[in-house]
């Protein structure tokens, strides 16, 4: 049995050694972020769940191909990002349904739920209006909390390019979010 605090590289070694159940540790560790990332990229929770499930199975199959298990998180986001791009390529951008986005908060106060839901819908609408690359850059930076170095590993883009995408995304979002706060 592998403890949840064990480093990624050690869990990967256990999986490659034949302990397939240990992969569940990695799923628990990264699934929430991957689902959030995919949902923000695709705007549809069902499509996001499919993309993440496909990505995790693919990651398991090709785990030995992960050349630096210490950077497993970046590798998983990279695979998921590619799956999201494949999904997006199969449909037109305006097919993204913001109304299908999942509820994000669960406060007990009913009025807070309504108010927060409206705010979330506004932010999601603004995010969905961004071009795919800027949307990805903003989500990785500000939602997933990645450094530009890690974003470069995930996207394959250069750091100056990513900074420019994040800056442009902020400008576009700020313009669209005048009603917020």
């Amino acid at each position, binding site marked *: 049995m592998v403890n949840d605090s064990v480093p990624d590289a050690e869990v990967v070694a256990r999986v490659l050694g034949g302990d*397939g159940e240990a992969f569940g540790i990695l799923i628990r560790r990264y699934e929430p972020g991957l689902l959030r990332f995919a949902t923000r990229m695709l705007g549809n*929770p069902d499509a996001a769940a499919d993309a993440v499930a496909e990505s995790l199975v*693919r990651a398991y199959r090709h785990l030995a191909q992960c050349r630096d298990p210490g950077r497993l998180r970046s590798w998983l986001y990279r695979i998921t990002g590619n799956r999201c791009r494949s999904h997006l390529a199969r449909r037109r951008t305006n097919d993204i349904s913001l109304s299908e986005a999942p509820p994000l908060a669960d406060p007990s106060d009913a009025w807070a739920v309504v108010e927060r839901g409206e705010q979330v819908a506004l932010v999601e609408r603004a995010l969905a209006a961004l071009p795919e690359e800027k949307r990805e850059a903003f989500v990785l930076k*500000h939602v997933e909390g990645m450094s530009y170095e890690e974003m470069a590993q995930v996207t394959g883009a250069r750091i100056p390019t990513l900074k420019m995408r994040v800056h442009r995304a902020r400008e576009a979002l700020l313009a669209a979010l005048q009603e917020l706060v």
Partner: protein
Amino acid sequence: MMLDAGGGMSPIDPRLQEALDNERDPGDLPADQQDAYARLMTAATLLSAKPAVSVADRVMAEIRAMPQQLHTGNRWRRAARWLTRPLAVTLRLRPAWTLGLAAGGLAAILLLPGDENGPEPPRATEGIAQFVGHFPGARSVEVVGSFNNWSRGKLHLRDENHNGIWHGDAVLPAGQHEYMFVVDGERWVADPLAGRYVDDGFGVGRQNAVLIVRQANSEDAP
């Protein structure tokens, strides 16, 4: 979308960008920029809630249904045992010139003596794959792929004539496999003669070569 007088999107003050990149204390920003900072950080917070769904059970069920030896070396131990027995073999289809290069090797394999009194037949689910690549000047070439967990050090090719033609064989389970050549221990190269490729899933334009191994007793071409 907010447009400036020139019709473009209003740029954000560089100080605000720096604060959002954690390169400047947001408390030092002018009041209007602190509002913009708060607006963007609130947006990020609203987008950061934990999703309500999980795919863990679905993924683990799929993983449990996979062959147990996916990440172990059992396949290779079985292949080594199989190689010690005289068997009829089936070869992977290759471009004509590579088959020609390997003709000597093929003949040697096909002429292995059989035992008419009942040699153990080849496993119905395996076949021989032959790898040939042209890498002049290379010091080493090996093959990594889905059949050996993409692990190096398990399938080395040989250049016995020192002419840059590297070749080697392996017994593999019948079916489709993905693979790459690793040249001089560091350069990963998709077989330029594979004829079939798939996206490797790890980057735009990155592809693995694909090979199809026929079952040893199959009469159907792949």
